[in-house]
């Protein structure tokens, strides 16, 4: 990957084609197609009910599409994988509502997320090695939670939980990061740091961000996909999208 320069079009990591899913007759996703490259930062925006979260559910295997192809890396058919398999393929997800393990310490949360074998037997024998400790320290520094490492995650503030979850996401060493509303509940300062973090990650990861905060999207976005009623309404650089009359009509204009 590092051999490929940033100007060159990098290979595709995630490929959605003609994906549809409906719940009780309601088409949540309707013929959605999306291509994400190996290193890019993609922002997905759209009004409520546009299908953003359902799209993430489909990629991570929580929801099975009725029709369409979902492929990953070298042609892995994600519709045939279950959630844990997909996670182990290197797709990490941060949920819309921060979901950390409230009765575990910050350390433990990160440790649970650390890349490694996930089997029952392995976890029964598992002992924290020196590299693991270093990695946890590194992550704590990245998400700025070093001083709180022994606190129970449940006692953290909303923004801190968001960061802990980003830390857990990184601990998995994913190739593709799906980030659902990362800056909700964060202070301006925290938001700024998150933006920096995501932009930095995008240099050697694929990052898909779903966000409502347009200011935040403007600050990080290179390429934006606008979803509306379960399909792609527009796609392109932020500057182009902002001036698209259709997009303004359904979303930005309000």
């Amino acid at each position, binding site marked *: 990957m590092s051999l490929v320069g940033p100007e060159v079009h990098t290979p595709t990591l995630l490929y959605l084609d003609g994906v549809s899913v409906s719940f009780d007759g309601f088409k949540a996703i309707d013929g959605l197609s999306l291509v994400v490259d190996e290193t890019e930062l993609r922002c997905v925006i759209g009004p409520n009910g546009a299908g953003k979260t359902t799209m993430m559910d489909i990629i991570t295997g929580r929801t099975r599409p009725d029709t369409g192809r979902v492929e990953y890396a070298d042609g892995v058919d994600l519709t045939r994988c279950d959630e844990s398999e997909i996670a182990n393929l290197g797709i990490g997800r941060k949920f819309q509502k921060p979901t*950390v393990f409230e009765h575990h310490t910050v350390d433990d949360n990160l440790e649970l997320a650390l890349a490694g074998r996930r089997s029952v037997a392995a976890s*029964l024998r598992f002992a924290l090695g020196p590299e693991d400790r270093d990695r946890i320290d590194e992550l704590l520094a990245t998400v700025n939670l070093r001083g709180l490492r022994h606190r129970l995650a449940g006692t953290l503030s909303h923004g801190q939980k968001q960061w802990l979850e980003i830390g857990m996401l990184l601990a998995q060493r994913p190739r593709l990061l799906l980030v659902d509303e990362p800056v909700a509940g964060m202070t301006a300062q925290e938001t700024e740091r998150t933006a920096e973090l995501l932009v930095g990650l995008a240099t050697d990861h694929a990052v898909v961000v779903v966000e409502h905060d347009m200011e935040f999207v403007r600050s990080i976005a290179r390429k934006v996909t606008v979803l509306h009623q379960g399909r792609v309404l527009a796609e392109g650089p932020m500057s182009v999208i902002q001036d698209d009359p259709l997009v303004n009509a359904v979303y930005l204009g309000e």
Partner: protein
Amino acid sequence: MSESPVHGSGGPGRSPTAAVLGVALVVVSVVGVLNQAVGESSALHVPTYVVTLLGKYACYALLAVALDLVWGYLGILSLGHGAFFALGGYAMGMHLMREIGPRGVYGHPVLPDFMVFLDWKTLPWYWHGFDSFAFALVMVVLVPAALAFVFGWLAFRSRVTGVYLSIMTQALTYALMLAFFRNEMGFGGNNGLTDFKDVLGLDLQSDATRVGLFVCSTMALAAGYLLARGIVRSRLGRVVTAIRDGEGRVRSLGYRPERYKLFVFTVSAAMAGVAGALYVPQVGIINPGEFAPLSSIELVVWVAVGGRGTLHGAALGAVLVNYAKTWLTGTYPEVWLFALGAMFVVVTLVLPRGIVGLAATTRAAWARRVTGASRAPGEVVP
């Protein structure tokens, strides 16, 4: 919750394994000596029936620890753990029946009395092998574990959770109760298995055997406690509590929660089976009543009273509630169910973390008052 999140904090220079085993040994030897060596006239003498009672409590405590593993740590409220206990008990009971041999009322060389009474001519296939003590011991662990494995495999794979799962565990034990009530099942029907004579050639009525069973039960409790503690404090334990708090999140980290659940559920069932196997020779009977949904739900209250999510709390709760039961059913039999019912309500409303939690909170509050410190970190009410 005070125990689960903290790992590797056993304290320097103190081996918990040695400590637990040491306490168990001390209890066992003190009770043994006070029963066997101290004369009956002495005020310190412990009568044999008390020894047996303590042995029973140890079995209950082991059962409670097994349930706590599933409920307190895994978050599955099993209303059918009595079934695993009873299956272990039946496996042991079948061995004890075979041990009677030709000494039954009807004097049949092989068939237990109830089969002769039902006019059966041959031993059913599933009764073969139980004449061997070793085989019975294997079955004590294997049968409950196999049932738990099959049930759990089906339930966890299709992601049945919460109250649905609880109701299903209750239905499981209810179905087993109905089945074991049938004479055709070949487990003695309504009367169950009883009139045991001896185990490994030792008379079950003798004081020495009873003390021996008490010792076994206490050591099994200590071993079960240590096993559960080992599981809880491993990374597996942390995954398991994480599943309890957010199964979907654990899955999205790449774990397979159903396998973890299956492991813990099966281990817990095996522990319950061992508890049942030790219980049966001490009380001298096993019947389908042990499968009754009420028995299973009663043991939930032991754990709740002691404090779920803490292994020692579960054991403590089992002993305390059963002591109260022994005392009340002896003195005011009609009050027991009122008391039990009230316990359910009070514990859930007022004492969600049980006695152990109450003690911890009181201690923390007291410490705060003394030092003037703010709320201690890690003090979260679940």
